[in-house]
């Protein structure tokens, strides 16, 4: 088929004869394109109709993209422009599936479960490059079909089979994220161009991916490509990633031996719809990163590797490997940003021949093989491609008792570490014995996995088979609802087939019926913990304490897949109608039957015998009265997100089981409509939904919006393209086209700014802009946090300098121009990120670090001990004392932020953020008058007034008044000897910014956003739907009658604005309660949250006494032990219940507002309820504990620098401070404010006035300060060293903030 012209947009339907041809072909020739190809041949063509796409749960390709197919597999490659997947640019491989002839999977309705793959060399990928003036081997990103028919011999000439089909992608090197630009500062070669061929040969079940990378400026046309080396030698030499990329580039030239080199591979984003397997680690591969990270391991210096990386989904599997034997090195595995290296180049400085190699195309080739849903079928084609000769294992799995064949069972082949006469007791013993092998320490020895009766196997006879390395191994069967089988020994011989019949483990089942207090069947979640030993607690009232059982369920060792579930949970089940069954291995189980935070929990002990179902009859009773409010979760992901796999139906079922009454799906850049699913399930009277989205820019924060218009025919169902790439590319010269680069480099395309995203969300609102809610998601989540990325100063509501990482992004480099204050709501809690809620103090961080070090240093300590330290300190962070809150200085607002705002003759005193008279120049304190100090933070240095107390300094500083006349503000460093109650600050930023403290400060500045708590769930167990959740004021408590527009109105603050639209005053606040569990209500002067209450009449002294009441309810299965009341961010009252389990607490309070300058400032009140005492019950196991510290992009960046073997760099960039993150779900709930209007101006104004960082037209000025202290030059360093340090300083003095502000 000839190549078609490129489509300008991705979804422009072509009304042509070709389209008609495609339709006919789709109807009558499901596989053969337009009937002009012979059966079995490979071919490539542009998609002209959605009926020709791949289809499936992860399918992304649409009209205009390219399909590669033969009679075995089909794949799709994106056209030019934007990537609709987790990547950035077109030209990536997004869909792959096997050809299915079962009649249920015609083209367009396949079973693709692959996310995205695109080449990467030195972290650079083919794209457009932000600066179009930069030179490159290729001018632009181009995706085109290679016309192999018109070029006879092309395939053979390239080393492929005759009749191949190919797609060529060429592009200039670009960064997947702008922040990676700072890597170049380390001397890593990053100016590259790419030419990649995706090749499909006839009859093959794999794609060959061949990439030629060109080092820009050094390539020589006409030279043959130079094959890059396998990484086997690098691995054998123990080289880490930066040992190759940076090599000796940071050393003095005289010491340099190795040149900065190249690592080549792909960004390999399998997504969450497949489980990742590697030989050795098995399905535990992803968790190894987490555990290495938890233990402080060097995950970049000693990266993990595997002969192949396999993603296994339901009915399809994918194996990625180098075409030639060699390891796949995976230094980073965070799901979305997974880099896999297969080849490399490293040259000695004196090896001219080697150094000349990058003047030619650097070629490397990988393969992506497609299997039928297990590891073996995906890996088998790679063996054939490499002409390797393994042995083979095949057989059947059957039920031992009945002899019946078992479909869907997994057969694991595990290395045999024993003498031939020895057998392990069970699978755990075998895995552990393998981990103790001296030649492969820590490797559980899982070699491969096969599944019975794979898709396409029409005979459900329990058959399996596949290649296995020769040798003696153990085979273990894992089947749904059964225990693991006994390990049995099998011998595999080279190129021979061994046949075995394997008995599956024993089955177990629990049948259940759940009723509510009316006697009707009730939705519920059933959590089964076990199998338990006889000594383990089981059943009984939920008032009994639940030990933190951190081991995995016996039937699910992590190398055998199924994912990690904390608390030894074996299974959980959702029921919407109160009846069903759970499948578990036989044993003793602690069953918890729950229905969210408004109902009781029924806890029972259940014994399950093989083949004989046990029975649970449970009752859940409503214990919390939420009349007037409906519960809602506005941040949930599902199958339309690349990093989630939950179907709509299961998500809805989970919401019902958790007692959530409204959900809005927030898939990444994809509009999802739960409506049809709710109707199909017949649960419309129990839950409300609205179309929503999470706009997911990579570097400027994430934003939610609902209710939105859903367009079935639009790309991503009408979601906003925040990249604007498809909109803007090729339109630069169009005078009517909007500015696509924010006034930057002509020809470049920059993403939408947050304010523009908000406006587009409002325009997309299905009920109009006034009833559309826009939400800032996880604003302090480092690289994905809006506040973090724009450098919103936690203490001043202004902006910090962008630094070396954020400064790579043109929008983040000018936050005052691009930050928007106008979003309606912000997530105070997100998921189980308790470390993002409150700002920790010095005591909390240093004490935690010390305790953690102590526990880790104790060889007798256990995982539970470590978790205990995390849990104890995390609770202390959540609890605030008055002293701690006073140290936050919520009443402090800078009087200036730059000199321009101070006028002529005055400067902005950087110590105080106050305008002072311009002092004399100085070089030392001696040059200043008494009571002044010479500060180098002004350039040139000038005399400023000396401080006397900490209040004379900024919040991130303290006053060193050891010399009373020369008191100097010094930066806090979070040292143990500092004020223990002060926030832990290092380099101007807290160790972790608590969003509630951000929110308090913004409220003080009149920036009112609804404070929310959303689950951000991507799964079902580790992040449950509705944990946390929101209670929104609603005129109806009937979920079936919820008015989505009314919910939107209740969430949005309403402001009075001036003629120019600027905010003057708040007239109504959001009516929302955000909570993990406690239902907290706040009334001030008898009015509920969201109210703007007139202040009571002042007393004789002019003061106003405000009275209020906090009312907290909670169910009987967790505790509440503390209530805090805040006014204007100041902790004014705290209380404890008589008993943490009393279920209702009413806390009356009074507060006095005093006039300042004759005026009483407006005030706001917020109440928080929590359970922070270690003896109080958490919400486990109904809501599972957060077992691991977060391993996100921010942490990866920090680890990256920590892994660079350079003492100076490591000294300058200390590792991030440890924070308590592993914690059970703490009962914690926050009200939105009640506002008191006391200043005589109509409505509520922020008591501290507008935020100083708020951009106003015409106001200019640059921040005075860099948050990084000057780097001293060592006096004895030589010239080379000075040059090196200077280069580092250039980078670091811009503020190396490790992604965010940590």
């Amino acid at each position, binding site marked *: 088929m000839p190549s078609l012209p490129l489509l300008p947009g991705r979804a422009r339907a072509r009304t042509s004869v070709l389209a008609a041809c495609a339709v006919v072909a789709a109807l009558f020739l499901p596989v053969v394109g337009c009937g002009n190809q012979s059966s079995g041949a490979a071919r490539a063509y542009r998609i002209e109709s959605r009926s020709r796409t791949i289809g499936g749960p992860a399918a992304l390709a649409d009209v205009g993209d390219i399909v590669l197919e033969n009679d075995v597999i089909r794949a799709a490659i994106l056209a030019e422009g934007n990537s609709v997947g987790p990547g950035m640019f077109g030209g990536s491989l997004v869909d792959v599936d096997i050809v299915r002839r079962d009649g249920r999977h015609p083209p367009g309705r396949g079973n693709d479960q692959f996310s995205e793959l695109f080449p990467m060399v030195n972290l650079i990928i083919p794209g457009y490059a932000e600066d179009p003036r930069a030179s490159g081997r290729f001018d632009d990103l181009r995706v085109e079909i290679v016309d192999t028919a018109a070029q006879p011999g092309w395939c053979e000439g390239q080393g492929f089979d005759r009749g191949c089909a190919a797609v060529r992608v060429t592009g200039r090197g670009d960064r997947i994220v702008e922040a990676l630009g700072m890597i170049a500062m380390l001397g890593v070669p990053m100016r590259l161009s790419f030419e990649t061929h995706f090749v499909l040969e006839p009859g093959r079940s794999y794609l060959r991916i061949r990439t030629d990378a060109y080092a820009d400026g050094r390539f020589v046309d006409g030279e043959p490509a130079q094959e890059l080396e396998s990484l086997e030698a690098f691995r054998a030499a123990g080289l880490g990633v930066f040992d190759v990329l940076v090599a000796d580039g940071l050393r003095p030239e005289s010491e340099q031996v190795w040149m900065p080199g190249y690592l080549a591979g792909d960004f390999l984003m399998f997504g969450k719809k497949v489980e990742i397997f590697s030989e050795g680690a098995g399905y535990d591969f992803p968790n190894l990163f987490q555990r290495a990270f938890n233990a402080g391991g060097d995950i970049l210096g000693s990266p993990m590797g595997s002969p192949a990386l396999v993603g296994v989904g339901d009915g399809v599997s994918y194996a990625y490997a180098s075409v030639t034997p060699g390891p796949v090195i995976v230094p980073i595995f965070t799901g979305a940003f997974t880099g896999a290296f297969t080849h490399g180049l490293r040259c000695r400085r004196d090896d001219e021949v080697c150094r000349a190699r990058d003047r030619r195309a650097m070629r490397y080739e990988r393969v992506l093989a497609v299997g039928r849903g297990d590891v073996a079928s995906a890996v088998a084609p790679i063996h054939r491609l490499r002409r390797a000769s393994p042995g083979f294992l095949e*057989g*059947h*799995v*059957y*039920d*031992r*008792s*009945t*002899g*019946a*064949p078992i479909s869907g069972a997994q057969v694991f082949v595990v290395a045999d570490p024993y003498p031939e006469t020895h*057998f392990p007791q069970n699978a755990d013993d075998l895995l552990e014995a393998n981990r103790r092998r001296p030649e492969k320490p820590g490797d559980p020895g899982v070699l491969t996995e096969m599944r019975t009766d794979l898709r396409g196997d029409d*005979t*459900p*006879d*329990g*058959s399996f088979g596949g290649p296995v390395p020769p040798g003696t191994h153990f*085979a273990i069967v894992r089947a749904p609802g059964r225990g693991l089988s*006994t*390990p*049995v*020994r*099998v011998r595999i011989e080279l190129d021979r087939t061994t*046949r*075995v*019949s*394997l*008995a599956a483990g*024993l089955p177990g*089942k629990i*049948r259940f019926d759940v009723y509510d207090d009316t006697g009707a069947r009730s939705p519920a979640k059933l959590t089964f913990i076990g199998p338990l030993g006889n000594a383990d607690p089981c059943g009984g009232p939920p008032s009994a304490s639940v030990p933190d059982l951190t081991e995995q369920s016996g039937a699910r060792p992590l190398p055998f897949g199924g994912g990690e579930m904390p608390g030894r949970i074996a299974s959980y089940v959702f029921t919407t109608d109160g009846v069903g069954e759970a499948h578990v291995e036989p044993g003793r189980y602690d069953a918890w039957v729950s229905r969210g935070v408004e109902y009781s929990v029924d806890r029972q002990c259940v014994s399950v*015998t*093989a*083949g*004989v*179902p*046990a*029975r649970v009859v449970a009752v859940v009773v409503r214990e919390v009265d939420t009349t007037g409010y409906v519960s809602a979760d506005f941040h949930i992901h599902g199958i339309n997100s690349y990093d989630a796999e939950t179907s709509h139906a299961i998500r809805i079922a989970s919401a019902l089981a958790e007692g959530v009454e409204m959900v809005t799906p927030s898939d990444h850049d994809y509009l999802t409509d739960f409506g049809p699913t709710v109707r199909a399930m017949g649960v419309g009277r129990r839950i409300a939904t609205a179309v929503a989205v999470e706009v997911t820019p990579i570097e400027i924060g994430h934003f939610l919006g609902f209710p939105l218009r859903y367009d079935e025919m639009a790309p991503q169902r009408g979601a906003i393209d925040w990249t604007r790439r498809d909109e803007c590319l090729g339109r630069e010269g169009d005078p009517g086209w909007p500015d696509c680069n924010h006034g930057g480099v002509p020809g470049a395309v920059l993403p939408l700014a947050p304010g523009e995203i908000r406006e587009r969300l409002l325009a997309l609102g299905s009920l109009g802009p006034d009833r559309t809610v826009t939400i800032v998601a996880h604003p302090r989540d480092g690289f994905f946090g809006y506040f973090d990325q724009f450098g919103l100063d936690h203490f001043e509501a202004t902006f910090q300098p962008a630094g070396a990482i954020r400064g790579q992004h043109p929008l983040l480099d000018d936050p005052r121009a691009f930050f928007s204050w106008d979003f309606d709501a912000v997530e105070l809690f997100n998921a189980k990120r308790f470390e993002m809620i409150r700002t920790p103090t010095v005591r909390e961080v240093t004490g935690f670090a010390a305790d953690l070090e102590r526990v880790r240093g104790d060889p007798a300590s256990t995982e539970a001990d470590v978790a205990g330290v995390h849990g104890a300190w995390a609770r202390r962070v959540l609890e605030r004392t008055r002293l701690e809150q006073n140290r936050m200085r919520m009443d402090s607002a800078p009087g200036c932020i730059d000199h321009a705002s101070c006028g002529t003759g005055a400067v902005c005193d950087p110590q105080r953020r106050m305008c002072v008279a311009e002092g004399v120049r100085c070089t030392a304190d001696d040059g200043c008058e008494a009571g002044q100090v010479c500060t180098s933070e002004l350039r040139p240095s000038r005399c400023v007034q000396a401080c006397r107390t900490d209040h004379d300094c900024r919040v991130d500083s303290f006053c060193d008044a050891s010399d009373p006349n020369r008191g100097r503000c010094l930066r806090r460093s979070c040292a143990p000897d500092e004020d223990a109650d002060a926030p832990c600050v290092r380099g101007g930023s807290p160790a972790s910014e608590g969003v509630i403290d951000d929110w308090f400060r913004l409220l003080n500045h009149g920036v009112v956003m609804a404070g929310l708590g959303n689950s951000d769930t991507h799964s079902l167990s580790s992040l449950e739907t509705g944990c946390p959740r929101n209670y929104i004021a609603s005129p109806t408590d009937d979920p079936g009658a919820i008015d989505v527009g009314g919910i939107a109105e209740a969430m949005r603050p309403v402001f009075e604005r001036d003629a120019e639209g600027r905010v003057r005053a708040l007239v109504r606040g959001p009516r929302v309660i955000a909570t993990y569990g406690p239902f907290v209500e706040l009334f001030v002067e008898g009015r509920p949250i969201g109210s703007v209450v007139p202040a009571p009449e002042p007393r004789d002294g002019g003061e106003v006494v405000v009275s209020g009441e906090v009312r907290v309810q909670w169910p009987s299965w967790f505790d509440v032990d503390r209530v805090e009341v805040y006014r204007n961010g100041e902790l004014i009252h705290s209380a404890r219940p008589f008993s943490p389990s009393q279920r209702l607490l009413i806390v009356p309070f009074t507060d006095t507002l005093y006039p300042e300058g004759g005026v009483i400032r407006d005030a706001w009140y917020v109440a928080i309820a929590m359970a922070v005492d270690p003896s109080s019950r958490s919400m486990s196991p109904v809501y599972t504990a957060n077992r691991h510290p977060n391993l996100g992009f921010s942490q990866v960046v920090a680890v990256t620098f920590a892994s660079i073997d350079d003492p100076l760099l490591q000294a300058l960039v200390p590792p991030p401070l440890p924070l308590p993150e592993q914690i059970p779900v703490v009962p914690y709930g926050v009200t939105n404010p009640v506002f008191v209007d006391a200043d005589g101006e109509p409505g509520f104004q922020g008591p501290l006035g507008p935020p100083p960082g708020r951009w106003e037209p015409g106001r200019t000025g640059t921040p005075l300060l860099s948050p990084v202290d000057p780097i001293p030059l060592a006096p004895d360093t030589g010239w080379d060293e000075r040059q090196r340090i200077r280069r580092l300083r250039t980078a670091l003095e811009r503020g190396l903030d490790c992604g965010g502000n940590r």
Partner: protein
Amino acid sequence: MGRIAIALCTAVHAATAAAQPEPQTTGNDPADAAADPTATSPAEDEGGPVPSVEPPTAAWREWSAETDATHGARRTAHSDDDASGAASAGDVAERPAGLAGPLWLESQAEDAALIEVGRGGFTFAPQGMIQIAGVPWLGDGARLATGSPADQPGFRFRRARLGAEGAMPLDVKWEMLAEFDSGGARLLDANLRVRLPIVELTAGVAKVPFSASALTPAAFLSFLDRPWAVDGRSDDGAVYGIAPGRMLGFQAAASWNMLRFSAGAFNGNREYFIGDDNAGLLYAARVECHPLGDLPDGQLRAGGGVPLLRLGASYLFNDDAAGDRHAAGGDVKLRAGPLTVEGEFLWSRFIPDSAPRMPGGEPAEVDRIGYYAQVAVLLPGDLVEIAARHDGFLLKDGVGDFNDRWGVAGSASLLLLGNRLKAQVEYVHRHQWYEPQVSDDHVALQVQGRF
């Protein structure tokens, strides 16, 4: 096996022939026949020839036309538990003159179709059965998967079956029967039968010729269920009992003298519509000996009360995907007047095709052993039957669980309208071979109606 059976059968025949009373010839009045406790009830005659018994009506003559040599074999081959066995007819089954209402009902064969229409060699006879069970008392530890009808208290449908059978020219018969439950309709029997001079061939879904108890129609059980060893299964359909039940395949049946033979080949699975799921076939054969005359199914008196004896032996081989299963069984049943005594012993062994090396004590081959012994007596008036049973089962799969057990049970059945309407009450006590013991005794009631 066959020779042994024949020799045994011949010996029994010789030993009992002299003691067998002469059958009495009855008059044309079926009421007389019913009233005469010594009369052979033709209603129970579908199992084989009883030459000395004459049917009382023309209709009975039609029935008796079916009582040829193949008829008894047919019972063993696909006879059904659901009143399907004797639904053979001439052109039209007519109500005998002078009979009306229940009197006429009781004159019919115990398992005959009540309604039958036909034209030109085609016949159509609808059939159906409904069983409603109730469990007034149930042990606290009763489990759902014991295969007991008393899995939970309260009333429920045990069976609701509807189907039809009929005949076509060329001596072809057909049968179609479905059962309805909470999961919808399930096909029980669907087969075609062709009678050839020597054998009768059956194709379709029917009972595998194995185990006398399994071949006994459900309508004629003295208890609510067969012994666990025969066809016990979990609520998921997983089969623990030794008899394979219904399967899709072919079988042939023949008779010679007092011997009845049947053998067949089947898919070896229960998913009729997906074909072969085990990469092999199940082969089964059964031989029966009726030395005193054919012993029919049913609970009413047979053969006019004369002793009737059935000796049987079964064998099957299932060439399954994962391994081979061999099973064998022997059974005996004696009916004399109001007394019925029966028992059966079953054994099977599963041998994996290619077992891997396993740790000691881990069973590679799995044996099952089961047995039962049962006695039932019709009380005077033949309206009430009381029965007692002892059964046991051992599954040597390395797991001692609730499947390994023995039990004793007692029941009483009220048989009305020629056993078209039946009410039963039973008490079952079970005892596990292994600890712990489970309180899963029960008292259950059942009402059954069929046509």
